[in-house]
């Protein structure tokens, strides 16, 4: 417990090695990591969390680097989490985002971490959210989450962000645009990067036309289309103004509260799922006993499953009592049978 407290304290103090170590434990889901995150959640919530997503090669890492440099000039500290895909064949990965961010090196106000998409299904969004919480609690004013916009897991990752920028580049065909349909819906800001290239105006026009199909209701956010040349920093100041405008709108409209609530719901659900899943593994004594009982003594599998889940929830409540606020009656946290109510 002291070790836990001290790691959290060191993270809050902004110690690089402590932040790095906690991020490793988050990725590995090491024992005790939930308690550290619980301690940090209460000290987080100040940072503006910006998601940057889009196709590979669109210039996201270059843009993130330019954004961070601009934030730094304005005196704001920056944490960056750059997610790159793991190889499906070997599980390994080559994480190259840092190459584009070398201009930020040597600045203690910037912390960059590369994360691969590996891990258990559903594990990446949770790791990304915990990583965001870590950098937020470490005092970063802005946390930028870069992720490749392909696949559901990547789209889920981006929901950890308050403001989502979707990057396009000139000359992408309609087919590509369509395949990004899932991403276009999550965009709070559209970025047309590589605007130094032919066709940039046309891409801006296409996106603007598409947005016009679903105009915002009064008081709703008007999604802007911003042109940038990440490689030179052109348009990046304008982009930050849009991000800040979106953040102000989130606060004023109440949408920020709704998004925070959605994030909390996901966090509670992930923790609860793991508390239960931990006992549903061969090797856990209660689980093995239940399997024995049903296989060898003709026990009732449904009753055995209920008992396991109830016992898991009981143990979880005790474990969690030390570290987190009592769950309220958030509908997203309840399960279909209501068996979580005790």
């Amino acid at each position, binding site marked *: 417990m002291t070790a836990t407290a001290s790691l959290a304290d060191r993270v809050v103090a902004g110690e690089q090695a402590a932040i790095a170590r906690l991020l*490793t434990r988050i990725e590995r889901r090491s024992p005790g990591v939930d308690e550290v995150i619980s301690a940090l959640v209460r000290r987080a919530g100040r940072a503006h969390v910006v998601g940057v997503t889009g196709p590979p090669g669109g210039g996201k890492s270059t843009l993130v680097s330019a954004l961070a440099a601009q934030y730094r000039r304005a005196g704001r500290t920056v944490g960056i989490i750059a997610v790159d895909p793991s190889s499906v064949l070997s599980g390994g990965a080559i994480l190259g985002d*840092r190459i584009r961010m070398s201009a930020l090196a040597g600045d203690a106000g910037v912390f960059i*971490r590369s994360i691969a998409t590996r891990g258990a299904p559903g594990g990446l969004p949770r790791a990304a959210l915990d990583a965001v919480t870590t950098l937020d609690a470490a005092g970063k004013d802005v946390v930028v989450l870069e992720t490749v916009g392909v696949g559901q897991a990547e789209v889920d990752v981006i929901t950890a962000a308050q403001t989502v920028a979707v990057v396009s580049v000139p000359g992408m065909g309609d087919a590509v645009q369509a395949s990004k349909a899932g991403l276009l819906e999550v965009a709070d800001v559209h970025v047309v990067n590589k605007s130094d290239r032919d066709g940039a105006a046309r891409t801006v026009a296409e996106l603007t036309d598409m947005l016009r199909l679903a105009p915002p209701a009064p008081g709703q956010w008007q999604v802007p289309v911003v042109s940038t040349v990440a490689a030179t920093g052109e348009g990046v100041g304008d982009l930050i103004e849009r991000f800040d405008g979106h953040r102000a709108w989130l606060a004023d409209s109440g949408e920020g509260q709704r998004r925070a609530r959605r994030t909390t719901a996901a966090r509670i659900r992930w923790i609860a799922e793991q508390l239960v899943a931990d006992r549903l593994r061969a090797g856990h004594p209660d689980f093995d006993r239940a399997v024995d009982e049903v296989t060898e003594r003709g026990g009732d599998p449904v009753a055995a499953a209920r008992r396991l889940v109830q016992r898991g929830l009981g143990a979880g409540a005790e474990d969690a009592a030390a570290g987190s606020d009592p769950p309220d009656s958030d509908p997203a946290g309840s399960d279909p049978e209501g068996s979580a109510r005790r």
Partner: protein
Amino acid sequence: MSAPGADTEPIRVMLAKIGLDGHDRGVRVVARALRDAGMEVIYSGLHRSPEQVVESAVQEDVDVLGVSLLSGAHLPIFSRIFEVVAQLPEPPRFAIVAGGVMPDEDCEALRRMGVAEVLGQDTTPEVIVATVRGLAREASARL
């Protein structure tokens, strides 16, 4: 708790090029071999400084930092790396490996500085993978 087997955790390796030497074909081949062995490889890009590389390796919390040099300037560069490492608030857990072309007598000097392994240019991918695995196991124990 539920750690899905500590030795199934992907090993994290940083591969770095320092100084003027602008050849990264060899490093790219090594990066692919390590990735194909299931490791996560963070590549620094060319022309980094010792300060930048150590800072990156700390932030990425890698198990192994591999520095590849073809420029012949390995002795001053590695001694600078270890100076920077010595100035960190706490000793890092990563092992430092030297790769590239260097004469035998320099290998001895590098080891004395604290380089864990020297892998010459003809080292096979199999040997590189096995070496990194061994060093990463020790680095993980320091986690």
